């Protein structure tokens, strides 16, 4: 409790310093992570293998202006970070949102990334760009083993673009590319089948109308191709999701590219994830994932993780265990414990922003 009060004071001080006033709901984030591995800077010392971060998020700034958004900021023993998110929602037609993050490590390395997404009716666009002079693991030591591949180069520029177009209710066409470490493009389709049950009509309804249905779950099929530097393959995938929130996903790639041994030849990739909300109590979320993608030349070829979020007291506790094999062939694993504490402003339940 003492720690929480200290955190509150710190946040208020930080918020006041940043903005003059901190209005609305603000979250305070505490996180401690530890990872093994000899490729950590100064490996061997507990201090170097441990990362502690304290930050604030969801701070409303510039309220009432066209660029009203939310700010987040934090400091760890590795870096100082600040992020700014902007959004506009036009229900039911669509929404636009963007997010820009900057992190500067104590060694002077810099990582700047920006992402914008927009959805309007049947079209969605997602574009991201980043510039960095230090590796992702210099800021977050566990960054290499996330479900989505992380560009592990020490410096560079990267960009990605993905467009989704809803051809009809069940069919979505996908087109996109990744540029930077391993330039590539992908194209594909997604088809969804609803698992439904029919609802009983009420008295006096027009009998010629189609009966209303309720969804009990969905099956999504994916098929496509990926081509670019050191990769040419076909892709396929399947997701099963229930209305209760349980979601199982499996994706595969087969083609020609970098193999596990580092040579070029027939290769494959396999990613799988399970998401189970409320399994560890109401409001909790559990996700297990594994990804084996030796064809990616700039990311960890093997990534495995378990992530849990549990409501605890006024806030929520997060537990992450991740591991894998790095491009250099070394293996490692790490764990992170975090706590997000909402401070006043709103009595609405908080969400687990990924």
């Amino acid at each position, binding site marked *: 409790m003492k720690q929480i009060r200290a955190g509150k004071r710190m946040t208020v001080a930080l918020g006041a310093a940043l903005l003059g006033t901190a209005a609305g709901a603000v979250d305070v984030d505490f996180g401690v992570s530890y990872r093994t591995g000899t490729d950590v800077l100064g490996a061997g010392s507990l201090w170097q293998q441990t990362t502690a971060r304290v930050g604030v998020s*969801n701070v409303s700034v510039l309220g009432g202006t066209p660029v*009203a958004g*939310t700010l987040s900021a934090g400091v760890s023993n590795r870096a100082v970070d600040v992020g700014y*998110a902007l*959004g*506009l*929602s*036009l*229900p*039911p*037609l*669509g*929404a636009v*949102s963007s997010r820009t993050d900057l992190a500067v490590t104590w060694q002077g390395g810099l990582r700047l990334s920006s992402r914008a*997404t927009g*959805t309007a*009716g*049947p*079209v*969605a666009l*997602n574009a991201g760009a980043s510039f960095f002079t230090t590796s992702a693991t210099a800021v977050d030591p566990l960054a290499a083993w996330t479900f989505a591949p992380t560009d592990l180069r020490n410096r560079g520029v990267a960009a990605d673009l993905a467009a*989704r177009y*809803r051809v*009809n*209710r069940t069919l*979505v066409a996908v087109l996109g590319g990744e540029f930077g470490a391993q330039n590539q493009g992908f194209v594909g389709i997604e088809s969804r089948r609803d698992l439904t049950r029919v*609802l009983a*009509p*009420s*008295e*006096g*309804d*027009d009998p010629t*109308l189609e009966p*209303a249905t309720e969804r009990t779950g969905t099956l999504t099929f994916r098929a496509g191709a990926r081509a670019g530097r050191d990769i040419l393959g076909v892709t396929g995938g399947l997701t099963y*999701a229930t*209305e*209760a*929130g349980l*979601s199982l996903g499996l994706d595969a790639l087969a083609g020609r590219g970098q193999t596990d041994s580092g040579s070029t030849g027939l290769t494959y990739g396999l990613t799988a994830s399970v*998401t189970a*909300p409320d399994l560890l109590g109401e409001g909790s*979320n559990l996700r297990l994932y594994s990804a084996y993608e030796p064809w990616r030349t700039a990311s960890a070829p093997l990534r495995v993780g378990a992530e849990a979020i549990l409501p605890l007291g006024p806030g929520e506790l997060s537990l992450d265990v991740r591991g894998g094999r790095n491009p250099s062939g070394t293996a490692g694993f790490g764990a992170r414990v975090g706590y997000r504490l909402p401070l006043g402003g*709103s*009595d*609405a339940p908080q*969400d*687990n*922003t*990924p």
Partner: protein
Amino acid sequence: MKNLLTLSVLALAALSSGAGAQTAQDILNRVDSAQKSAKDVSFRLSGTASLESSAQKIDLTVKSIPAQSVARLQFLAPDALADNVVVADKNEVRQYLFLTNQITVTPVKKAANSAGFGGLDFTQLSNAATLLSQYSVKLLGTTGAAGSRLFQLEATPKGTGSTDKARVWITEAGWRPTRLQLVSSGNKVLADLNVSSYKVNAGLTAAALRALPKDAQIIRQ
């Protein structure tokens, strides 16, 4: 689309008290008293609406718990909006976008300022009295035999200078709306929607109305 939302709001609004001409008032009073015991209301709106120039198929379900100020709109058609969900309560408007599997969360204050609902306060969906006070309602005609008469009402927005009208058909059997029309100043029908699967006290819960896909990415705005 905002016209469509106006209609769905009117459908709920027509369920309870209102103002206007005496005969229309009587009908609305009956609807109101039929609704007084309603803990929850749900119905389906289906038909066509002219978006820009072309007519589009519209199909959505509306669920509401007025006492808790929770309302949910779920689209089945057009294809571009199918499976999108909008949930509003006193604090925030949540929008689920099927195409990107994202949920946007907008505080009510911000949502009211943005153009999405064309100045219409979506959270008032469950506050019919407030809503109808902004409309003049009159009785256009009555058809059918006693016991199952159908009343046609017309609502005109007060004081906005708009000459767009909304027509609502109310059935005596159950005192509930069966059809909605939005008519432009040139007497062109912009939207024509049937009200079906109409239920009250179906045991809806606020949690069920708020439920959105749990694997969606959440974007706070």
